[in-house]
């Protein structure tokens, strides 16, 4: 059990780690407790790093030892809440140690010169990891709450949204993000839908709760839309309405929102993008907000293209009958 965590390593423990009451425990007790530490996002990395260092130092003695299996997928998903740099170093060190240990064995056995190849492999891996980690960074560097961006008024296109969503479904909920004070959420609920509103501005959600006659009937989750979408299982929503965030964020995040919305929408369900008319956007924003927002609204024609490219079918564009929001919608293939 817990080979290699018995205090032999010189690598210090996680700075600030809480180990109250553990000092002086016997080696097998330390191993028992360290087995749990390896289950933490940082702990598993620490163990992997220690394991890698040991393999480099003593490649001949670890031939039969199982390699570190790597972080479970769910822990990678938590990357933004852990220190990515630390993960990165540990992961790369683990790979390089594997390669170098294997090469050392191979060199000793066959006197071959494969070390250079192995190093290049490791560097290629490193470059790929940098790209993957950069792509995994939250593409919304400024949250809505940090900018003087008011929540969009979704009452204008409410009729359009209802007709695009089709017949009400009491099974899976429809998601509306960003929903502002929940006016559209309330409207869809009255029409018979189960609705989950997402809104990053707590003040807007408060207004919705305050005006909710049926206390507790209005469902608004206070969160950034992209982050929330990532927590939803596939095909778990009857439809998704995107507003506000689709204007504000950069192109990569716009595409991310669309991909996530398509992923969580069940087959046959609609993905509706409510895009602000560009001239209205420029008029409505104060200069700092306009300058600092990572993105600006796309033309509806561009959304048509993106929705088609994302695999949605029967893509349509409805111009605003009132207000400033264009509705562009497509349906997930059945």
């Amino acid at each position, binding site marked *: 059990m817990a080979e290699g965590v018995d205090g032999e390593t010189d690598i210090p423990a*996680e*700075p*600030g*780690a*809480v180990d*109250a*009451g*553990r*000092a*002086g*425990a*016997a080696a097998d*007790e330390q191993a*028992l*407790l360290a*087995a*749990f*530490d390896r*289950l*933490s*996002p*940082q*702990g598993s990395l*620490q163990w992997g790093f220690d394991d890698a260092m040991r393999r480099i130092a003593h490649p001949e003695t670890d031939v039969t030892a199982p390699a570190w299996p790597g972080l479970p997928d*769910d*822990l990678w998903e*938590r990357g933004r*809440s*852990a*220190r990515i740099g630390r993960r990165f170093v540990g992961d790369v060190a683990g790979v390089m140690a594997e390669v170098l240990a294997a090469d050392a064995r191979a060199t000793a056995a066959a006197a071959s010169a494969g070390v250079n190849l192995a190093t290049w492999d490791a560097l290629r891996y490193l470059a790929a990891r940098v790209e993957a980690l950069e792509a995994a960074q939250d593409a919304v560097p400024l949250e809505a709450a940090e900018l003087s961006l008011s929540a969009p008024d979704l009452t204008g296109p409410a009729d359009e949204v209802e007709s695009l969503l089709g017949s009400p479904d009491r099974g899976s909920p429809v998601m509306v993000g960003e929903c502002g004070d929940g006016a559209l959420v309330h409207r869809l609920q009255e029409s018979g839908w189960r609705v989950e509103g997402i809104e990053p501005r*707590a*003040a807007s*959600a*408060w207004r919705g*709760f305050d005006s909710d006659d049926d*206390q*507790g009937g209005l*469902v608004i989750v*206070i969160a950034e839309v992209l982050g929330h979408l990532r927590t939803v299982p596939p095909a778990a929503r009857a439809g998704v309405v995107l507003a506000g965030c689709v204007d504000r964020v950069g192109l990569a995040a716009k595409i991310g929102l669309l991909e996530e919305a398509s992923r969580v929408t069940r087959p046959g369900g609609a993905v509706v993008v409510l895009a602000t008319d560009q001239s209205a956007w420029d008029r409505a924003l104060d200069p700092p907000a306009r300058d600092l927002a990572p993105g600006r609204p796309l033309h509806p024609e561009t959304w048509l293209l993106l929705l088609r490219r994302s695999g949605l079918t029967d893509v349509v564009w409805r111009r605003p009958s009132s207000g400033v929001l264009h509705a562009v919608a497509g349906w997930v293939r059945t």
Partner: protein
Amino acid sequence: MGPNVNGAHLFVPMLHRNDAVGKHTLAVRDALVAAGVPSQIFTDRPDSQTVGETRPYLDYEKLSDPEDVLIYQLATDSEMAVWLSGRSERLVLNHHSITPPACFASWNNAIARLQTGALQRLEVLAPRAVLGVADSEFNAAELRSAGCRNTTVVPVAGISVPPVDPGPDLIERVRAGQGGPGPHWLSVGRWAPNKAHHDTLAALFVARATTEPHATLTLVGSATEPAYAGALRRYAAALGLGDAVEFVAGISDAELAARYRCADVLVMLSDHEGFGVPLVEAMGQGTPIVAFDAGAVGEVMDGGGVLLQEKHPRAVAGAVSQLLSDRPRRDRLVEAGRQRFDALGLDRAANRLVEALGHLGAPTGAPS
């Protein structure tokens, strides 16, 4: 209430009906209103279960009065603290436990940062407060070291006194579900790293491998840190404890009381406790306790259970085994626990806080 207080309003980042800070806040609000003092609860963020009882904190500006007292419940970080630090009304800092950031560092850096922020808020608000209220001497010492000049200790309000009676049917149902001869260990608290439930699992593993092959453990809590909660389940499975460990969440106060009554021992190995509500609940229900001496644990228990200075798996397993095999000693500790429960004066906690407000000096009219 003294002549210098117009209203006493409570500020809490988020009001949860079922956590210790939430219950405390609601109990203090009720005690203030019963004493004829206008009191409302203001929050930074709404909770759907309590939104009808709270208002956004910025709303306070519309009804502020120079003779108001603002009581801030400090347990985690909030922008509300920055706003409070600039207010001219008298500030009372009600200090609950701030979990050390290091407890969360390897599990959730976002929460670790949040707790770091809370410690910084404590440094800013403590010198500014006209009164610091702590639920333990341990927390009061933190207040003083942060610069609070005037402190008092009032236990957490909102704990049921007398203890909840689960009734015979519920006790029988819980007992029937326990299975096996036991002993049955109980651990109560959020499934978060600072609660160190993993140490309890390790101790159970040793106990079953040595003296108590049929020992079981029930973990009552909620998955406030999902990565940690998931790791607990994987750890239990990896140690072959899958059938011996039960995770229980979302139960009523009555069922929790039944769990205490049916347990042979409460094992609490937290790395940090500012008060330790489960200790008090266990003492009230007559459940023997084995606890690690961290934070306020020794002070709150005060002889009402076994206090460990180390929590190696063997040490914990041995302490539990010794306690359960020595009936007279166990009975003595249970009786001492009951006396300690009474001595804490939990039924008067909210009123004691209200009385303390009555001794505040007149408002100065400007932030100090």
